[in-house]
């Protein structure tokens, strides 16, 4: 499976983007987000970027006020996921120019389009920023 979910959460703990690659009910999602956000946000800069939760791991990274949390299987390569988060952020940066929480919040659909190009069924599909962004550009041309 690899990636189970990708969450973007601000430092108040509000979810700004959630993409799950396994089906959970709304209640399960709420509970899960509550638990892991509590766990991850309480950590400091000197601690590592991996948190073990139930039977999987959270790899997370903080950018200003926004946390990117990725749930992965226990045997996933943690550093590869950590840098995948950065690739996602760089891709958003390339599109929005200095991306911030509000960009993601108000352009929810674009954030989804990007993720859709990068991850499918919990596996990484594409890592070239140009390729990731081309469908969005196509759509912008169309409207």
């Amino acid at each position, binding site marked *: 499976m690899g990636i189970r979910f990708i969450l973007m959460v601000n430092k108040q703990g509000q979810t700004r983007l959630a993409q799950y690659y396994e089906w959970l009910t709304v209640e399960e999602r709420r509970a899960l*987000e509550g638990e892991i956000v509590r766990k991850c946000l309480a950590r400091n800069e000197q601690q590592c970027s991996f948190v*073990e939760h139930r039977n999987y791991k959270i790899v997370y990274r903080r950018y200003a006020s926004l946390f990117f949390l990725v749930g992965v299987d226990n045997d996933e390569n*943690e550093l590869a996921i950590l840098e995948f988060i950065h690739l996602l952020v760089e891709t958003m940066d390339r599109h929005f120019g200095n991306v911030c929480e509000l960009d993601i*919040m108000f352009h*929810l*659909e674009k954030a989804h*389009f990007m993720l859709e190009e990068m991850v*499918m069924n919990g596996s990484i599909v*594409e890592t070239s920023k140009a*390729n990731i962004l081309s469908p969005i550009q196509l759509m912008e041309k169309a409207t």
Partner: protein
Amino acid sequence: MAMHGMRGLAIFISDVRNCQNKELERLRVDKELGNIRNRFKKEKGLTPYAKKKYVWKMLYIYMLGYDVDFGHMEAVSLISAPKYPEKQVGYIVTSCLLNENHDFLRLAINTVRNDIIGRNETSQCLALTLVGNIGGREFAESLAPDVQKLILSSSCRPLVRKKAALCLLRLFRKSPDVVNVDGWADRMAQLLDERDLGVLTASMSLLVSLVSNNHEAYWTCLPKCVKILERLARNQDVPQEYTYYGIPSPWLQVKTMRALQYFPTIEDPNSRRTLFEVLQHILMGTDVVKNVNKNNASHAVLFEALALVMHLDAEKEMLSQCVALLGKFIAVREPNIRYLGLENMARMLIVTDVQEIIKRHQAQIITSLKDPDISICRRALDLLYGMCDVTNAKDIVEELLQYLSSADFTMLEELSLKAAILAEKFAPDLSWYVDVILQLIEKAGDFISDDIWFRVVQFVTNNDDLQTYAAAKAKEYLDKPAVHEKMVKVCAYILGEYSHLLARRPGCTPKEIFSIIHEKLPTVRTTTIPILLSAYAKILIHTQPPDQVLRNQIWAVFTKYESCIDAEIQQRAVEYFALSRKGAALMDILAEMPKFPERQSSLIKKAEDAEGGTAEQSAIKLRAQQQPSNALVVTNQHPANRAPPPVSVGQLSLVKAPSMDDTEDHSIERAPSQENVNISKVDPQAPSADLLSDLLGPLAIEGPPGAAVQYEHNATPGLDSGPDASAIVPVAEETNTIQPIVNIAERFRALCFKDSGILYEDPYIQIGIKAEWRAHHGRLALFLGNKNTSPLISVQALILPPAHLKMELSSVPDTIPPRAQVQFPLEVVNLQPSRDVAVLDFSYKFGTNKVNIKLHLPALLNKFLQPISVSTEEFFPQWRSLAGPPLKLQEVVRGLRPMALTEMENLLHSFGLMISQGLDPNPNNLVASTIFCSEKTHGMLCLVRIETDPADRTQLRMTLASGDPTLTFELKEFIKEQLVSITTVTPAPPAAPPTPQILSSDPAALLAGLLS
């Protein structure tokens, strides 16, 4: 901005953002939901644009954690919108809101298929992504060939092909039979010749999934993977777009090395040489650099390379190089690298010959144990637990004890359990073991399970020379002012039994002992008081000559509790009081406890169970199982690190294992013991020559019939209560005038091996079922379809679950309207292994006819099996460690219908067992493995071996092994029943049950059929 015109959405988002509190947010969201619902309901002709806007709002609300239970239809309908922006929204929102079982999704199959086979590549991509994310079995059945064609099509651009590859991966997972191995393996190899790195990235994920399932079929892909890795690692022809901080696609490198770890060995010398050169290059050429991203990316590759080196039989030199690297990592300050260093070092313990080098890092690892970061502590704890053996147990356990007082409370339970296990396994002498456990209870009483103190009591009871020491210690602990209640329990018990051994010591007269214990009584809960009362009674009989004052004191206590509201306390008080008046007879009645029979440590089992749970859903379950703690499978890893094998003499005895470097004789030095104390010394290396004899031994079918069967039948509770599975017919048909129009037994049997279909049908009603199983949970939906033009009334459904299943049925409506179908969900939780079958007691009235039927529900044992492939390296140690009954059972089954080996394989496969090809050198034998999930056992590995006799196919010998005796027995019986029933019940193999109508498994179609 592209929010063009979607002003309404932007306003809504900002409204929600401005809400001061959760309550206001909910109000705003509810208002919006009401608004959207109205629009969808009232305005039939909503423009695609308006729909798009509302659908995004729905997704936003859903993301905030509110349930959105309408509008799915609208989202799905956007998929067929003509314009790209609407179509895109339709696809994306549908894949977020719906899951594969959603009925609306089925409505879209045709549109999706048209998009996939159409010429418009943007639509192709959208459709492939949707199927790749949420496509289910039906999609697999109708789309697999098209998707396979796209992947290899020369006219398709990479952007379509990469998605097709991952789409196929999903379809393969949903329905493994869609990928035809014979044809596909060559194509897969061909796909790896691709130059485009996007397509390769996706294809590699597909390959990983395919090889993890069956590496043999894909051996031609192996050299190609090596080539790809070489290309990347040496940065040959890698476009800038795929270079990340100077590292050629680290993700593809990692994935490629992951794929290589699924091949057991690399035989081709050229590939092997090239691969080792590349790995050497990665190991040596990865430097620490300033840039964080570059550093992470290169170390991601490095850690994967380390894992691959460990997997391959690398040269000793290379392995020590790896350990040296890891040793460096665990000493750095950077927390991520340190965490991974610890994690990988624990994995490294599986490799023989490196333990000694790892032990050199013990001090460093202990430093990490005390790290304020709990993630790092956990890794350090696991590593310490794994590397512990007789040579370092004392140091490690003492460190763990010390750490107890400062550890994060979420770790205490695991920490104390592990310390207790290590103390038991590797204790140099038993008094030390007692010390450790008492310290554990003192420092972390709340987190000590009862098993731990039960175990110490067993040890003390069974070892006479330990009793005096234990009693003295117990007194010492009880003397302290604030004592944890668990400490009171264990100390009171020990003092009750053995305090008389201390009688000559100062301060240890029975009176003093009594008052020490009795002082604690007001502080304990009612559950502890019975233990204290027993201790008093025991003290009383050991007081020779009788002490009047003490006796009166104790009698006063008994009298006081004679009217206690707690029945247990009251009974003990009354009985002890009465007994203690009988004088001499009391001596016999309250004599010292006899020795406990030898039993496996429940602690070790508990730890294993806990670990099994973590591996539940991972694709690579066994790897994961070893990962969190190698130590829990220590018995398989290393001779010096194995648990004492059970000793059959009725005595707990401590086994010392010789350490690696220490050849001097470790005979056990203990105080002179009584003649019946059995000391055994077991040399763990001795049986190694015989390791495979069990599995590879000659076929012994000619043994006496049923000779091997009679293990533990009675020891396992509840086994005999199961209904005879060969009687798979409605439990009772009573005297219904209305007869079913389908063969219920056959239906049930078919449903045992598939997840949807018709369970029952008569002229008035059709009952369909659809099930989804995940680990030990199941979600069933029962579909009740009224076939008539008048309603069915007095509908009642009751579930009679067997003891091992927890089933929750939502309420069933009293009436089913004419020609309508109602659906009701049923949640199932599997508590423990059992073959019992749940029964649905269903009744309804049609006109004056009352119909009552009892149907078996297909929630059988095999539904909780998850096939898993086990490699030779993993299989044998497991097989070996599950040495004999009750964990490993064998039985000869006779009188079978002769069947070919491949048919048998299919059969086992349909039960949820994974056949390991070629693992057994005898071609007439089959070896299979699976994971059984229940709340009790968590995910537990089961291994199966079937030996057939080519000369006589009507008999076979079956051997089952798992870590749980009940599971082993139940699974063995299950397989046997299935093998036997296939000979007697149905002529066709159960994997392919007779299909009645094409659409029968699709409840939506079923409904459509009813309404036509």
